[in-house]
């Protein structure tokens, strides 16, 4: 018995001496990755892009990085409708200087306004010869049809719903998909002590159990969107909430906006809108990229909007003023 105990004791001491606590490095070897971001708007000819590189820091707080990762001197070209648009190198002051003291490097063109539903491509050649590319579709929408109303909500409104529909797009590459993100908002101002704050109230489609608002999602198959008038009325009432000074609220109008996006941008946008079903706690944030040779996003979108008048009698019925 004594022999056994002795063996165990010696074994324990030996193991504890030789099994020094292995250190583990949560970091693998640093990977140099380049990130290209360019989102084409169809309502303007002024388009911008940025390129940055990945970085590493001492420790694990990326906010301690002070070396500006945004790259200049790259060549960026946009290919569209048999034309090539070269983006110029530039920089501008940052709105937030807390991390980087330098100006923000970016690329722009003032002459690219896509008009047709055609494919487009971006190519960025970095100063070190690295090439990043991506493809997307230009998506434009001709019109949105408003039904069940004459673009006006009044006190004598007899409709139960206000609805909008739109047609499908004929894109050059159907398999890439077209995604729609509709929203209906009420534009209003809150004025107090001569200070005016412009605000908007987003209107849900409906409420679950009368409590949880459900808003339109980013979807590819939808071509219409309908809001119940009871919900619109509830949203109007919620603008002031429990504030008895309802005269401080000046209601302008309601606006229905429809964002039309290509699949790449829609996926990227969706990961940040966090609409997904959440099964459990996750360590990793979701991410999406459509850049070949790197990360980031290249996409396009167009916006159509329809103004809905809110009549004075309707606005005043909530105690608000008409703007």
């Amino acid at each position, binding site marked *: *018995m004594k022999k056994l105990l002795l063996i*165990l004791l010696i*074994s324990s*001491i030996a*193991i*504890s001496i030789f*099994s020094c*606590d*292995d*250190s*583990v*490095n*949560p*970091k*693998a*070897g640093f*990977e140099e*990755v380049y*990130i290209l*971001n*360019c*989102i084409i708007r169809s309502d303007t000819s002024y388009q*911008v*892009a*940025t390129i*940055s590189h990945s*970085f*590493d820091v001492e*420790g*694990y*707080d*990326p906010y301690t990085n002070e070396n500006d990762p945004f790259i200049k001197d790259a060549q960026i070209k946009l290919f569209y409708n048999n034309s090539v648009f070269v983006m110029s190198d530039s920089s*501008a002051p*940052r709105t*937030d200087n807390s991390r980087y003291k330098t100006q923000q490097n*970016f690329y722009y063109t003032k002459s690219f306004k896509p008009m047709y539903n055609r494919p487009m491509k971006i190519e960025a050649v970095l100063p070190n010869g690295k090439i990043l590319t991506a493809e997307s579709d230009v998506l434009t929408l001709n019109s949105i049809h408003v039904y069940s109303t004459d673009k006006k909500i009044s006190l004598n409104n007899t409709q139960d719903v206000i609805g909008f529909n739109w047609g499908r797009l004929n894109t050059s590459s159907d398999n890439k998909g077209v995604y729609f*993100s509709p929203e209906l908002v009420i534009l209003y101002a809150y004025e107090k002590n001569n200070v005016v704050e412009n605000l908007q109230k987003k209107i849900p489609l409906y409420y*679950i159990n009368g409590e*949880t608002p459900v808003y339109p999602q980013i*979807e590819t198959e939808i071509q219409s969107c309908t809001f119940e008038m009871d919900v619109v009325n509830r949203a109007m009432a919620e603008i002031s909430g429990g504030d008895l000074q309802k005269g401080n609220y000046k209601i302008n109008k309601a606006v229905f*906006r429809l*964002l039309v996006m290509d699949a790449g941008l829609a996926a990227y*946008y969706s*990961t*940040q809108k*966090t*609409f*997904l*079903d*959440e*099964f*459990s*706690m*996750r*360590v*990793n*944030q*979701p991410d999406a990229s459509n850049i070949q040779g790197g*990360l980031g*996003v290249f996409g396009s979108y167009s916006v159509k909007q329809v103004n809905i008048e809110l009549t004075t009698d309707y606005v005043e019925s909530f105690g608000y003023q008409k703007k």
Partner: protein
Amino acid sequence: MTTKDHFPHFEKVFYISVSAVLIFLLLGINNKISAQQRLGILRGFVADSASGEVLPYANIYIKELGRGASTDHRGFFIMSSLPVEKNLTVAVSYIGYGTKEFVVSVRPYIVSDIRVYLSQTSIRLQTIEKIGERIAKENATDLSLQKIAIRDLEFLPKGVELDIFRSLQSMPGVQTAGDVSARFYVRGSASNQNLVLLDNVPIYNPFHALGIFSAIDPDMVSTVEFYKGGFPSEYNGRLSSVLKVVTRDGNRNYISGKASLSLLTAKVLIEGPIPSGSFIASFRKNYSDEILKKFRNNNSIPADFYDYFVKINYANDKFAKDAKFALSIFKSDDKVMNDNPMREDFKWSNNTININYFQISDSPLFYQVEIGASNFKGERIPNESGAKGVVNEIKDAIMRMDFNYVYESKDELAGGFKISDVQSKLLLENFRGQVTDVGSHGTNISAYVKYKFLRYPSLGIDFGTRINATRLAGGGPAYFFEPRTSLTYRLMPELAFKASWGIYLQDIVTISDETEVVTIFEPWLITPSYLTPSRAIHYVCGLEYTPSQNISFNLEGYYKILHDLAVINEKKYFPNDPDLIPGEGEASGVEFQTRYLSLPYNISASYSLAWSFKNIEGVRYAPRYDSRHTVNLSIEYDLGAGWTTSAMWTYSSGLPFTQIAGYYEKLTIDDLHDDNYVLNSYLPFTLLSGKNIGRLPDYHRLDLSISKKFMIGKLKIYLDASALNVYNRKNLFYFRRDTGERVDMLPFLPTATLKVEL
């Protein structure tokens, strides 16, 4: 993709299987007719003389014939092909009990029944018993099967307290995610592919306290049968392993009780006779989370749990001759209630009930009918944490019938059917507050037949198939065959070659997030109709070498292919994208185990070399439970006078994890309507390296234990003191990506348990 695509020779395999079973049946029946005139059958029941409790896996040895058998989990055995009207000396033995010898004379035409009651003794296993055990296993088709009587576990270091699941983890091929979870992974498969049966009823989430302990109190357990793979056709519904827990019947002779106290729980057990039967009832409750803190870097775990079990047995020949009825009820209940509205709370519970009717007939036939139900309910209550609520419920109603017939040739025929009606509810809330129920309802009707070819002492073949007439859900064909076979061939008395092969189906899955470091509970879901149910093929072979009665060596190799594993769609960008997508899996390995038993020593050592991979959308990676090398060593030493000491050392090479490869400025778009976001809206984002390419440091730990058993009056006192992680190895659990802080597993921890038995 259809079944045919995955198994191009499937139909051929099936027809060969069915044909072979029919041939074996005919052979067996012919043999019975010719043998009836000359041979007889001995059937027996072995139990404890004091309590009347059955003794599973007891050894029976007929000296004149050199033949052996062992009792099943009900304490029954059958030996056929015995010479009639000849005096035979039968020795019945069991570990910890005195051997009994008596002479029987088997009569022709009828089954001769014996009942044997053994008395406990302080003398441990003797030579005759080991011979009996070895001979009983001669042609047993038991590859990858571990039969464990609960008393075998009692002398090993218990940790905080004896835990069946943690005991399994010392077996080669069984992997754990660390000290903080009793969840186990068998031969490279996910934990949801393990079937856990309590008295033949599945338990869907058999864990307490965030998964640190199992929900099954070992004091109510009689035996554990654990198939690591290649399991026979009576089991279905999982791809990887079967853990069958059989509960005790209770003391048939007098009222007795136990009370025990560990640093975690207090529990009581009472058992005793009732008219024509017995009962057993146990209750366990935790009373402190102080010990749980040690498992989580001294972070408080506000866990509150209890479980209870009640079983009533009834056997009255006037009511039903040679029949036994049992009713068992089990409940476990857990709550993790943070006293903080900014953190989410969790609740989950398991409820099972089972009614068992077991019948022995005048011929060598056993059959049983069971009706049972299992209900699991889990809930995540988000409070103000920002997390989203989850409600999961599984209601499984089961009816099954099984029979086993022993031919005089020693061959056996087994079969049965099972109806399982499953209702799943899974309420998920998305970040827009929308609640959806992705649950469904399905019924699985299946039958199985199995022929055991055991007529030659050196050869055993187990051949059968399960036929699914309907499935719970999922795509693919409505019916599905699961042919399985197992073989044992004894090359020489000391050396046996074993092999098994089988196809397995699983159409109920958990939503397991592999990136999750702590799994509170995994919601169960019937495989959605857009996915084909998961399937696996097992190939296993091995050698068993027993050069002497004291020492044995086992070597097993396996290869496992997994198809259509339901995994979370990490690229679900849009609401209409599927939540789950199909993946493929592959696992292979070699396991070696040796045991040496010579009083006062009981030593075992095992080593496993394993590889496991998943392939999801073209990305091949090692899952988080893939450990290349695992070593387990245990030594038990009987000091005499009621003292026993033991040591257990475990080593496991590092588990995979995903490392940080850097950071980048990510464009964040809060609203596309805003201007200038491409210029101004960036936040740092972590850049990850390849999935699970990194490896955590190796895990190892030494536990020591000393136990003393003594009497005070009529009270039996058991004292156990254990020291866990004796050399205070800092085994890494995970690190925080945001701070780099390492979170370690269990530090050096002394524990003690006191048990009083009347």
